[in-house]
């Protein structure tokens, strides 16, 4: 199976480095962006299964980035990392289209769990879609055959 790729967006270099080290060690492909603009640029040119977005970025709010990415990459899983545990932040993140939110300080264990879960879901959806396409093609083919 191909490695899942994850884009990590945070303005803190140490976090980017340590997170990508952990994720790569766990077998994911990672890329990093230090701000919203860079993240948008990268998501346009490359494909990512998932993005981890910090809610506070130097050039825009995480929620704004969320909206923009929802437009360009609707299928990409978007996980919001909220700085401070508050219901308000969480609700906001989900309302803006995040697939999940996780609170700082991150417990790597929790993060890995969420990432694995979401990727699994994504794969299943994909599989289902593929199956549907296959089924559709098959029915079409049978139909064509009968007609002939």
């Amino acid at each position, binding site marked *: 199976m191909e490695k899942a790729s994850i884009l990590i967006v945070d303005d803190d270099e*140490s*976090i980017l480095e340590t997170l990508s080290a*952990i994720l790569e060690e766990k077998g994911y492909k990672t890329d990093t962006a230090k701000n919203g603009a860079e993240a948008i640029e990268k998501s346009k040119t490359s494909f990512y299964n998932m993005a981890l977005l910090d809610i506070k970025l130097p050039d825009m709010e995480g929620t704004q980035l969320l909206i923009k990415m929802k437009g360009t990459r609707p299928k990409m899983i978007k996980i919001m990392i909220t700085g401070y*545990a508050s219901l308000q932040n969480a609700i906001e993140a989900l309302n803006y289209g995040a697939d999940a939110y996780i609170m700082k*300080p*991150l417990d790597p264990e929790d993060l890995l769990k969420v990432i694995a879960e979401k990727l699994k879901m994504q794969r299943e959806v994909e599989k289902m879609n593929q199956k549907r396409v296959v089924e559709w093609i098959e029915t079409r083919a049978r139909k064509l055959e009968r007609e002939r």
Partner: protein
Amino acid sequence: MRLSFPSKVSLIVALLLVLSIFAYASVSIMLEVNKRTKDIIDEKKSLNELVAFTIESAETAEVVTWYKKYVESAEVMTWYKKYVVTKVAEPEDVVYCRLVKPTGEIIISNIEEESGMFIRDPAIATNKTVVKDEVFNEEKILVIVSPTYEGHTVWLGFSLRKINEAVTGMIISTLATAMVIVSISIPISYFIVSRFLSPIKELTNLCDDISRGNFNVQSNIQSKDEVGVLSNTFNDMARKLETMREEIRRSERLSAIGQLATMVGHDLRNPLTSIQNAAYFLKMKLGGSTDEKVKKMFGIINNEVGYANKIVNDLLDFSTVKKPEFTKVNLVSLIKDALAQLDVPENVNIVTKFSESPIIEADPDQLRRIFLNIALNGVQAIPNGGELTVSTRNVDDFVEVAFIDTGVGIPEENMSKIFTPLFTTKSKGVGLGLCICNNLVEGHGGKIDVISKVGVGSTFTIKLPIHH
């Protein structure tokens, strides 16, 4: 020019006094003048009528007829008339006394040069005494005309100089009185008003003190009038200002702590996350290491990062006022949840005594944190082993959760400080736990009571309303 209050009052008093003196004086002078004028007219009238009668009787009476036999009458008569007229005109205020013919010719006058002159005046034909005024030698005088024998008239002119002099005298004495009264009343009223104002002056000085920031002042004015009330109000105000300033200082201190806490909390969050991540990565890499020390070190990093995170969370909790999100919660299961998160040392025994499990309206997250925090304090207060009893009790519309430990207890001097931020007796802790608990409980409309005795233990009772 700016006048002081006593000066203004004394000037006003003096002015009022002068006005009333003048009003009184002018009325009484007017009345006096009228009375004197009337008296003098009456007097002169009687005198003139007497002269007229005397001359008439000399001219017509029997006795004179008899007398005429012996004297060369016309000559004597003239002399007699002249004598009477001159006598009557003797007093200083009489200007003239004349005997006038019905034709208007002056027959006899005390003023020689007038004899033979004519008067053109309707009064020459009067048949009863009349009073009239005229100007004589540029002086305004009164004239009384009385009829006498055969259409003749007697004219008596007199001046009112006396009355005018009297009036002038009266005005002068009024002025003098007014001046005396004013010169006495000004200092007296100034003195009295100053006396009345002295408490106000005292209060003004105290107000000055307050404006300079010295709120610790009290006025000693004891009186039952308005000034006394003002003084009491002032004292009240000073006391309240003092307590308000204390409160402001406290809240300023708290807000400064809060701002610092938020800053520190946010800034620490990222490095802590990085440390945690880095440690996790190293653990993954070296996880298989058999070196016990390496494992132990990872354990320490993990625990300490966890503890640091807790401090950060406490700081942020303390500085961010979070409104409770009320839902219906089962109190007992919340307490059980909290106790389950508690690390209980082996020598501490947890005893629970729950009343019928009440459902209350509260924020479950906040309550769990309160219970965990208080229970943790309890356990930490029992270093040498003992018991922590957690009980609930329903009291009217409230529910009470009591945490009773058999620990070291809180010394009396610390009792008042335990809820203040940054107060701690523990080697590990920033001293925000109880303060946060207190804030959260107050946010629920409840309160925390503490009873403690050194060497016996402490009881923390959290009283929460059942309905929000």
